[in-house]
């Protein structure tokens, strides 16, 4: 088989399917979003309405609220996981452990992230429970009255975000340890010989080296935060009220959950896709210099 033949035989089927998987739903979403269609109706009742769905989005206060909630969610989870993992756990794991402990640290650190999200969600729901939860038990020992973490409008979003920070903070810590280990020993030892303190070594030696490979990781975390549905769905389903209703939660609720307005939900999917695409393209262009 020639090189050319090999190339086409493998590229064409894979990209055929990928193009279909990308553009067929996208095309459909755009098509539905320009129509008025309800799941309860047969598709022949689909009615062309132009940009009406998008106009409605602009004035839908619940949609605006979900954008705001998504922004808070992304900010809290990305910052929380980065600070916990990169700022606290990674230096701890790296600086003070031998070989065996290192392996155990890494192993334990990746476990939360590898759990099915549904599983992690239930684990925390059990611990958060106001009536039988262990967290409230410990708080009560300290004299704090029981808190219904997931039903309180101002705590709910942060209670769910904490789970995400738990999953990702530890994962980021593990990845950072790997990154730091790739730095030649001499660099760090030279710093130590010059009398640098531990925090100075981290700030001025390790941080600048680790930053470039860390940024793509941060980007992945950001994208993952944008698409967190499972946690919120299992733990609060967007409630109480709309306190934890992110964009995908609201789109789900409108389209499939209970309202069945598939065309309106499709216009939200399109908006979501556009936001993601703009964002990814921007980062990809900016990151060109780190790629080979």
């Amino acid at each position, binding site marked *: *088989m020639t090189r050319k*033949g*090999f*190339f086409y035989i*493998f590229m064409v089927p*894979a*990209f055929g399917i*990928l193009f279909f*998987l*990308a553009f067929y739903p*996208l095309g*459909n979403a755009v098509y*539905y979003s320009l129509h008025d269609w309800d799941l309860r109706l047969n*598709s022949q009742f689909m009615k062309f309405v132009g940009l009406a769905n998008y106009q409605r989005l602009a004035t839908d206060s619940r949609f605006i609220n979900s954008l705001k909630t998504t922004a808070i969610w992304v900010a809290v989870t990305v910052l929380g996981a980065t600070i916990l993992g990169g700022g606290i756990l990674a230096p*701890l*794991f790296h*600086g003070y*452990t031998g070989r065996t*402990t290192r392996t155990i640290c890494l*192993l334990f650190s*990746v*476990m*939360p992230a*590898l*759990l*099915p*999200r*549904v*599983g*992690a969600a*239930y*684990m925390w729901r*059990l611990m958060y429970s106001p*009536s039988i939860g*262990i967290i409230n*038990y410990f708080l009560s020992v300290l004299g704090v009255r029981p808190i219904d973490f997931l039903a309180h409008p101002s705590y709910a979003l942060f209670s769910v975000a904490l789970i995400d920070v738990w999953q990702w903070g530890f994962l980021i810590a*593990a*990845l950072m340890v*790997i990154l730091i280990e790739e730095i030649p020993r001499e660099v760090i030892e030279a710093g*130590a010989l010059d009398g640098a303190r531990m925090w100075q070594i981290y700030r001025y030696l390790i941080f600048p080296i680790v930053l470039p490979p860390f940024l*793509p*990781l941060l980007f*992945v975390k950001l994208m993952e935060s944008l*698409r967190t*549905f499972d946690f919120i769905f*299992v733990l*609060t389903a967007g*409630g109480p009220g709309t306190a934890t209703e992110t*964009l*995908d939660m609201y*789109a789900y609720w409108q389209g499939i959950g209970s309202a069945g307005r598939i065309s309106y*939900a*499709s216009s939200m*999917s399109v908006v*979501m*896709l556009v936001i*993601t*695409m703009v964002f*990814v393209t921007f980062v*990809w262009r900016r990151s060109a210099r780190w790629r080979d």
Partner: protein
Amino acid sequence: MARLGRARKIGFTILIVLVLFVAIAPIVWMFISSLKSKVDILSYPPKFLFSPTLENYRRVLNIATIMRGFRNSLIIVPIALLIGFVLGAPVGYIFARIPFRKKEDLRFFVLTLRFMPPVAVAIPFFAIWLRLKMLDVHQALIFTYLVISIPTMVWLTIECFRRVPVECEEAAHLEGCTQFQVFSRIALPLALPSLLGMSMFVFILLWNEFFFAFILTSTRAITMPVASASFAVVGMEVPWGQICASIILLSIPPLVLSYFFVRFLPFFFKVG
């Protein structure tokens, strides 16, 4: 490090133990709870000493939905993974070794697929499968899962093939091997360990996948994550014993694979 005094060393050891405990405490607590009887699990303050029972597991394994979910996951996930491998790994090889025009653009396209918001994919697919009368059908979910398995495979295998010594491949070319032979007899076997590592990661992704399965299936093609979550109605107090047992069963495969995941951790930086 070496310069630390003994007292500080002990202090940091305790700190690390505490931190690691936080990492796995939710898992441990759910496992403990899964061994409790109904009375013990609902008692407050929470019981740390109780007589363990396997009652919850026995009951869960007799629930038809759970068993069907388990069976479906064991069918759907490997098939989606296999298709992803067969279609994705050669593309990864091509990206790693064969120069062609528009390569960067295609790589970017694969990347964006990986980051598409699931809702934006699932809602159109829901409508499509609904119109084709293929909601709750295994094949429909497997096909939809290719949107996860193929791009991830392509993206992760690029690095695997890059690590194959290029001299081996050049030698094979000089010996008169065709491109396909170089791929199948040299690159594939040499990259196999890391390819398996990456496949395992995709397996975990698919095994854990909840959202597509939740939207596109209901009874016949339900997968394990959806089945485990189907116990609880939001807002109502839930049958905790059975949930704990089924979540633990669901979580065992990814937890077992976490050891291998750690071994392949360095790979994940080279792929970005």
